[in-house]
């Protein structure tokens, strides 16, 4: 099967065609306010007071977003408080992004006439880039160019029975077609890691999965708390999930049945194609930017039930440049947020569709959105700030 995408000079294929302006700040915001077809990132952290490891994670996010196939060209500005650190210098970020063959321009307030001057120059550059990008036409390409990221959230028992299995079917189909698919949330595989380790492509990958869980479970135990006071979260428990193990065993269904090729860090790009486990954290404002930085050109949030009440607006889009889909199998959630949800698989619970039929329908929805149809959350011009997954203390 195939979709319509933007073929980039490095051979990757975008499902969108943006000019990216990074890092965040008044320069990026002003440029994006003025120029159509642009995207920026909102973050709280820009690296100041962060350790070298965490600064490298921030760099990985910025470089990765710049290299994402959904990005046509990039403007970087050198006015972020983080740029004093070697890892976050605009030139370093620009060099690494430019290796993908994209046009990258740097704005430097010190050289370009201060903040005002950099904004003016940036608007001129961005208009030119947006115009050039618009000349590119979508072409029919194979599904091996899809790269997916998923998270399940507000999970309840409908997630494990029908919602995640539909995503799992999609994952198997994309991996079988030669594409790439990522899942993660290390806390939410505790109790299910032995099942995943059996699916590892090599003994080293199996060990890496078990090691990721070992580290995370040790951190949890060090708190002295029953993990159930933290995770499963109250909405999970209200939805019928009774333990972290139960949540994990339901959560892994979204990863389908393909062999796991490797364990990636947050925002790390895979070396090859296939299914990958990402050692990341479940927060949706964190995880999706990480997937996009790792190269995802479409991402999914599989939603359970808790907390979604009548006429809820699900805003989403924390994936910056990757289209963001909401899916659910909970009939109450679907009824409460119908105009925000891209895909419903409660039909499996109701008995009107088999899991395979629902999965096939999800696949067609993903192909349609990859080819240019807006996801429901993309119809909103709104996104929450990104919470990059930084793990070390601040000083």
């Amino acid at each position: 099967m195939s979709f319509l995408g933007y073929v980039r000079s490095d051979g990757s294929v975008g499902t969108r065609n943006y000019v990216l302006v990074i890092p965040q700040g008044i320069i990026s915001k002003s440029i994006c306010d003025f120029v159509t077809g642009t995207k920026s990132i909102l973050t709280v952290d820009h690296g100041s007071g962060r350790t070298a490891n965490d600064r490298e994670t921030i760099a990985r996010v910025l470089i990765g977003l710049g290299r994402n196939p959904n990005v046509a060209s990039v403007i970087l500005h050198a006015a972020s408080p983080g740029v004093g650190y070697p890892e976050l210098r605009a030139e370093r970020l620009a060099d690494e992004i430019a290796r993908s063959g994209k046009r990258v321009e740097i704005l430097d307030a010190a050289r370009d006439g201060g903040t005002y001057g950099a904004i003016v120059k940036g608007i001129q550059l961005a208009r030119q880039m947006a115009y050039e990008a618009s000349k590119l036409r979508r072409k029919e390409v194979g599904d091996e160019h899809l790269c997916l990221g998923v998270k399940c959230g507000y999970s309840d028992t409908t997630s494990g029975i029908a919602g995640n299995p539909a995503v799992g079917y999609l994952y198997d189909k994309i991996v079988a077609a030669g594409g790439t698919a990522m899942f993660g949330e290390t806390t939410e595989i505790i109790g299910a890691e032995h099942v995943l380790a059996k699916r590892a492509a090599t003994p080293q990958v199996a060990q890496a999965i078990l090691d990721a869980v070992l580290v995370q479970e040790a951190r949890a135990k060090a708190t002295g708390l029953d993990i159930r006071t933290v995770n499963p979260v109250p909405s999970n428990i209200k939805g019928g999930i009774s333990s972290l193990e139960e949540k994990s065993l339901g959560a892994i269904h979204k990863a389908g049945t393909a062999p796991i090729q490797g364990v990636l860090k947050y925002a790390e790009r895979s070396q090859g194609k296939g299914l990958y486990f990402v050692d990341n954290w479940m927060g949706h404002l964190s995880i999706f930017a990480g997937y996009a930085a790792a190269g995802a050109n479409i991402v999914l949030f599989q939603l359970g039930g808790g907390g979604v009440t009548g006429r809820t607006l699900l805003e989403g889009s924390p994936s910056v440049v990757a289209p963001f889909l909401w899916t659910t199998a909970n009939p109450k959630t679907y009824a409460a947020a119908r105009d925000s949800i891209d895909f419903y698989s409660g039909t499996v619970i109701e008995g009107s569709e088999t899991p395979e039929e629902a999965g096939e329908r999800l696949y067609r929805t993903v192909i349609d959105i990859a080819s240019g149809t807006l996801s429901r959350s993309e119809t909103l011009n709104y996104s929450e700030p990104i919470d990059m997954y930084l793990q070390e203390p601040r000083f």
Partner: protein
Amino acid sequence: MPAKRALIMHPSDNVATTVEEIQAGEEVAIPMGRKVLSICAIEAIPFGFKIALQDIPRGEIIRKYGETIGTAGTNIAKGALVHIHNLEGTRARGDLERRDKG
């Protein structure tokens, strides 16, 4: 009145997940391959929660998806609701580590 429905995820499970709101005393039908297991709910079980398919003595493993989801914190009767009041998580239990260390 037709029986209410619950789903079993694996043949070795000792709980099933309800996919309808169930009242105390109602019959619950659980498809198991070609057969249908029928269990009387001894208490109300909300949509998406778990019903015990057999008596589960305290300390016994509770299985869903064919895997361990916890242990019984009390003696659980067949047809009872299984949730955080009678199911103990076994993983990432910092509280138990702390108690064991005294």
